[in-house]
C-alpha cells in the first residue's frame, strides 16, 4: 500500500522527479565509468606485467636492486641447484643483467644489457628471434619500440655496445638488431637491449650466471640459501597496486563530490515536498495512517528516485559500458611518461559486482538522505499538520 502511494506521488511530481532521476543516473554512470577504468587499469597492468615481465614470481640475487644500475656489476651468481632442473624444463627462466653503453649514430647512451634464453616460454615476448643467425662479428639483439624510438634504431641496424665484464675488463662488440618488439611494459623496453643468455654470459665471463630467475610457478616465499631472495607476485606487483590505489583515491574525491551534490538535490526535493504537502500529511493522519507510515512513504518516494536512476543507468549506461569494455579507451602516448605500463588501449572492467555495488551504495545513502527531512513527520501532531503548521 505504502509502495503504491509513494510511487503514485513520485510519478505525479513529473519533471521534478525526472530531473532528480537524471542527476542520480549521471552520478551512478560517472562513478561506474571511473571505477571500472581503475579496475580495468589494475587488471590490464597486472596481466601485462605477469605475462611480459614477472612470470608468477622471481628469485633475485641478494645484491640486485632494480632501481640502482650500479649494483648490477655484483648482482649475479650461478643458477642455484634447486632451480637448475626447472630451468632445464623451462619452468624457470634465468636473466642476466649487466650495465653497458651503446653508440647509436655517433651518440652514447647508457643501457642495460639483458640476457635471456631464446627458447624461453614463460614471458610472452618474441625472444625466440634472438636465435636468428647473425653476420660474423655481430651478436643478435632485440630492443623494444620505445628504445628503438629513443635510439632511432631499426631492424637490421648495427650498433656498438661497450661493457665491463665480471673480471673488470672493458670490452666492445657490434650488435645487430634482429627484431624490434612491442611491449606494454616499459620496464622491459626502455633503456634495455636484449641478447641471448648464452651470448651475454660469454661476454660477461660468467657462465651459468643469472641476476634474476623468473618462475612459471607461484613461489612459496622461501629464499634459496643466502644468495637468492624469493619475490612473490604480490610483492612484485606492489608498486602497481599502489599506483592504481593512489589514482583511485584521487578519483574518489571527485565522485564523493558528485554523490554529495546529488544527495543535496534529493534532500531539497524531499524537504520542499514535505513542506508543500503538510495538509496532505494531516489528511493521511486523519484517515488513520500512523506518523511512521507517512514518514516511511515519503522516504520511499526519495528512494524511488534512486530506483528509477538505476533503471536509467542500465538503459543508458549499459551500452556505454559494453562498448568501452569491448573496444577500450585510447591512451595517448604521454601516459607512458607517468610510468604506466599499458598499451595504447585500455580496457576498463565493468563487472556486475561493480555496478551492483555502486547502485546499492547510492540507494542506501539515498534512503538515509530521504529519511532525514521525513523524520520530522514522526513528531508531528495531526491537528498541526491539518492546519499546515510545521514547527
Amino acid at each position, binding site marked *: 500500500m505504502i509502495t503504491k*502511494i509513494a510511487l503514485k506521488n513520485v510519478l505525479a511530481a513529473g519533471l521534478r522527479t525526472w530531473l532528480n532521476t537524471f542527476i542520480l543516473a549521471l552520478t551512478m554512470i560517472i562513478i561506474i565509468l571511473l571505477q571500472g577504468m581503475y579496475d580495468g587499469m589494475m587488471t590490464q597492468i597486472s596481466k601485462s606485467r605477469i605475462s611480459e615481465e614477472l612470470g608468477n614470481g622471481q628469485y633475485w640475487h641478494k645484491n640486485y636492486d632494480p632501481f640502482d644500475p650500479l649494483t648490477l656489476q655484483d648482482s649475479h651468481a650461478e643458477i642455484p641447484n634447486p632451480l637448475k632442473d626447472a630451468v632445464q624444463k623451462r619452468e624457470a627462466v634465468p636473466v642476466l643483467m649487466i650495465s653497458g653503453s651503446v653508440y647509436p649514430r655517433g651518440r652514447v647512451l647508457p643501457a642495460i644489457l639483458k640476457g635471456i634464453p631464446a627458447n624461453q616460454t614463460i614471458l610472452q615476448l618474441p625472444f625466440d628471434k634472438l636465435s636468428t643467425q647473425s653476420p660474423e662479428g655481430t651478436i643478435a639483439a632485440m630492443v623494444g619500440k620505445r628504445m628503438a624510438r629513443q635510439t632511432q634504431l631499426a631492424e637490421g641496424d648495427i650498433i656498438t655496445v661497450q661493457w665491463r665484464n665480471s673480471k673488470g675488463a672493458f670490452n666492445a662488440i657490434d650488435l645487430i638488431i634482429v627484431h624490434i618488439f612491442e611491449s606494454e611494459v616499459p620496464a622491459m623496453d626502455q633503456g634495455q637491449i636484449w641478447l641471448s643468455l648464452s651470448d651475454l654470459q660469454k661476454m660477461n665471463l660468467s657462465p651459468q650466471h643469472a641476476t634474476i630467475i623468473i618462475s612459471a610457478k607461484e613461489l612459496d616465499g622461501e629464499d634459496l640459501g643466502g644468495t637468492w631472495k624469493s619475490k612473490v607476485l604480490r610483492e612484485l606487483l606492489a608498486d602497481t597496486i599502489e599506483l592504481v590505489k593512489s589514482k583511485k583515491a584521487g578519483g574518489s574525491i571527485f565522485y564523493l563530490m558528485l554523490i554529495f551534490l546529488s544527495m543535496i538535490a534529493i534532500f531539497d526535493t524531499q524537504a520542499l515536498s514535505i513542506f508543500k504537502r503538510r*495538509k496532505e500529511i494531516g*489528511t493521511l*493522519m*486523519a*484517515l*488513520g495512517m500512523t506518523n511512521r507510515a507517512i514518514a516511511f512513504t515519503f522516504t520511499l518516494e526519495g528512494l524511488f528516485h534512486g530506483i528509477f536512476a538505476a533503471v536509467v543507468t542500465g538503459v543508458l549506461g549499459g551500452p556505454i559500458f559494453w562498448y568501452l569494455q569491448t573496444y577500450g579507451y585510447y591512451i595517448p602516448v604521454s601516459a607512458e611518461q607517468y610510468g604506466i605500463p599499458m598499451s595504447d588501449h585500455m580496457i576498463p572492467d565493468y563487472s556486475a559486482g561493480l555496478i551492483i555495488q555502486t547502485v546499492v551504495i547510492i540507494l542506501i545513502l539515498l534512503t538515509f538522505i530521504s529519511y532525514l527531512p521525513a523524520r520530522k513527520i514522526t513528531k508531528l501532531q*495531526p*491537528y498541526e499538520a*491539518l492546519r499546515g503548521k510545521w514547527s
Partner: protein
Amino acid sequence: MKPNTVIKTSNLNKIFPIGGEDFYALKEINLEVNEGEFTGIVGPSGSGKTTLLNIMGSLDKPSQGRISFMGNDITNLAAKKSAVLRSESIGFIFQTYNLLPVYTAYENLELPLILLKMSSRDKKKAIMESLEWVGLTDKKDSKPSQLSGGQCQRVAIARAMVKNPKVILADEPTANLDSENSHIILKTMETINRESKTTFVFSTHDDKVIGYLKRKITLIDGSIKSDEIF
C-alpha cells in the same frame, strides 16, 4: 431505549500557552453525543469549535478532563491506537475537502479501505456504494482538479462514509461552497444520517447548516452556552 453514547466528555479543558500565559480554548466541556445524532457545535470564530472537534476525533488531546469513545477512554490514547481508532471508526470532512490531488475520486475512497486491509472485491463494492450515495459514480475516474467544489465535497463525504464509521466529524463543510451546493451537501448528509444512522457532528457558524441540525450546541469563548434539541 436509551441510544448508545458515542462520544462523552467530562470536565474537558484545552489550554494553550500563549505569551507566557495559559489560554483556555475549551473550558469545562461536559457533553454526550449519542448514536444517530445530527449535531452541530456552533459559535463565532475562535470559540473553540474546531479544537473540540479535533479532540473528539482523537486528532488532539485534552489538557484536562476526560473523553471517551464508544465507552472507551481515549484521553491519553497512544498515537498508533489513535490512528487505528480514526481508521476504523471516525470519518472526517474538512472545509477544504482535503482530497489527495494525485488520486482519482475512486482512489481517494480506496485509501481508507486499504488501511483497513479490505479485500479488493469488498473495497470495490463499498466504494461504488459510497459514490452512489453522493451521486458521483460517473466521476469515479476524475481527479479533484477535474471536479467542482460541490463535487469535491461530495467525494469527501463519500470518503468519510466508505468505511461505515461510527461518527463523521465535519469541520465547516459548507464554508467553501455556494448556497446551492451547500444545500445539496447538507441534504446528502441528512439522508445518510437518516438511512444509515451514522452520527454526524458539525463544527459550523453557517446558518444554512444550522437550519438542518437536530441538536445545536452553542460554544462561546470555549464554554458551552446552550445545548438545544430540535
